[in-house]
């Protein structure tokens, strides 16, 4: 009989990924619903002491494999270890982060186990009648949502994007067990050789690729004020763009121009600051998922396409917003 909710606790360089803790939070909720326990799978080299953190964030038990074969992520050793653990523990549900690791590992494991896997879930819940895991996810480029079940195969597996679930508050009083699993590796498992590891370097800015854009128009006024937008963009992890008026005035580079004679962007967030919203500009950004506009003039046309419009002075609002965001990151 399959039992318990397991979470693949992803780590890099000995540091647990935020998504691992978020998934434990969700696993806790699902386990409590089913009256079962939460397990965490921790693979790496010299990572045993991280088990405690996992327990403090909701795990009842942590299965550790500490081995030189697992020092850097590689498909086969990790798949072999996870497969061995899942075959032994027979869980009901397994959750992975939908990261560049999770999306490489989970499908391979699911194929080795001959079970179902659902990717990028935004919602996970237990069905009241069938007790099956209901996995809801976007499809068709995000245009529709689908709810999926894995009825006849176990474990039911899902990957979840970082930032979707919520981690539990750390509870240092929580107790749990730590078990070291015995996985037999052999040299042939290392079927890929890592020659070099390159840590990330910043690439050239292309606003059409940015997820979040903070854009300024004539209302940003004198050139120096674009620094306020730059600070906000940095806080969000996004890029700065501008309307044609700002580019023509020499305040911003042509590569940042959004609109009829500039670029067309479709980011997840477009903050239009001091932009009136003439159709030549709107043509370049109306497909953004979330449009927030700040403008002193309540009749500005930008407000008719903004999801959230705020009538106010961007010179006051933007720095305060940046501060609030930075503060929330530190928590």
């Amino acid at each position, binding site marked *: 009989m399959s039992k318990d909710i397991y979470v693949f606790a992803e780590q*890099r360089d000995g540091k647990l990924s935020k998504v691992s803790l978020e998934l434990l939070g969700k696993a806790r909720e699902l386990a409590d619903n089913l009256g079962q326990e939460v397990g965490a799978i921790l693979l790496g080299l010299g990572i045993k002491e991280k088990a405690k953190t996992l327990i403090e964030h909701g795990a009842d038990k942590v299965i550790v494999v500490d081995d030189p074969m697992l020092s*850097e*992520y590689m*498909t086969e050793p990790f798949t072999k270890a996870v497969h061995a653990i899942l075959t032994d523990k027979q869980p009901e549900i397994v959750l992975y982060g939908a990261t*560049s690791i999770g*999306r*490489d590992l989970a*499908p*391979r494991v*699911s*194929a080795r186990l*001959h079970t*179902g*896997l659902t*990717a*990028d879930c935004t919602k996970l819940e237990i069905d009241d009648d069938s007790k099956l895991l*209901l996995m809801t996810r976007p*499809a*068709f*480029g*995000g*245009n*529709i*949502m*689908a*709810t*999926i*079940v*894995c*009825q*006849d195969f176990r474990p039911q597996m899902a990957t979840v994007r970082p*930032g*979707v679930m919520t981690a539990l508050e750390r509870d240092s009083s929580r107790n749990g067990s730590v078990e070291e699993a015995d996985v037999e590796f052999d040299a042939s498992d290392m*079927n*890929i050789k*890592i020659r070099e*590891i*390159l*840590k*990330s370097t910043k690439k050239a800015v292309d606003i059409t690729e940015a997820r979040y854009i903070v854009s300024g128009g004539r209302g940003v006024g004198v050139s120096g004020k674009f620094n306020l937008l730059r600070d906000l963009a940095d806080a*969000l992890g996004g890029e700065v763009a501008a309307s044609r008026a700002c580019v023509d005035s020499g305040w911003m580079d042509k590569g940042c121009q959004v609109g009829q004679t500039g670029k067309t962007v*479709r980011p*997840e*967030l477009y903050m239009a600051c001091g932009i009136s919203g003439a159709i030549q500009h709107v043509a370049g950004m109306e497909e953004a998922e*979330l449009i927030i506009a*700040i403008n002193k003039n309540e009749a500005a046309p930008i407000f*008719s396409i*903004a*999801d*959230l*419009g*705020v009538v*106010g002075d961007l010179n*006051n*609002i933007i720095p*305060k*917003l940046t501060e*609030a*965001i930075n503060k929330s*990151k530190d928590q």
Partner: protein
Amino acid sequence: MKIVVCAKQVPDTTEVRLDPKTNTLIREGVPSIINPDDKAGIEAALQLKETVPGCMVTVVCMGPPQADVALREALAMGCDDAILITDRAFGGSDTWATSSIIASALKKMDFDLIITGRQAIDGDTAQVGPQIAEHLGIPQVSYAEKIELEDDKLVVWRQFEDRCHIVEVAMPCLVTALAELAEPRFMSVGGIVDAYNTKEVKIWSYEDVKDTLDAANMGLKGSPTKVIKSFTKEAKGAGTLLKDLTDDEAVAAIMTKLQEKHII
């Protein structure tokens, strides 16, 4: 050297719109395209073909009969052969069943390198590539942003969020391509003429793969996962306009919105 590229024909989901009156997807008039990650894979294969004498590139697609035009496009870009794996019995396949079917076809071919796209823009799962590799028992390198051939080994720049692994892998192996792996060439006019006149798209049905495919693994019946419900997201309602707020109230309102949308 033999390269097989797995490609999928998908609706251009960036062109799909929601009908505001019925809240359903408007699918008609949406062009069908070769999935962008797969197209990058085709380009990478063609670039390797240009540097390796005698290298052949076969493109394989599992889909309905109308996927023929996607294969013609791949042939027009320069691929040597094309195979369309199509059968009513394959309908409703999830990623397990799809990867099983495609793997069964690949088992009937010689290959040194299989390239798939990282993910399709309609399914968005990124699962089929790695699952095919598992069915075939070969190593996989996913999220490839660059590949190079070095003697008989493949060197791949494997992308992670915060780093890149430069790895070396022996062939046969499978690589999943990111769109940035290669900027796809256009078809050429002469290439399109060849695609329709001198090259052909072979059609394989269940009959052609039944010796390598367990029938229990295909179609809706063979899929461990099933969709029980699909629905459109809430239509984007009219926006909210907030006036007469203090600066702090304005910041709070924006923060709430950003949190709601998981941006912070």
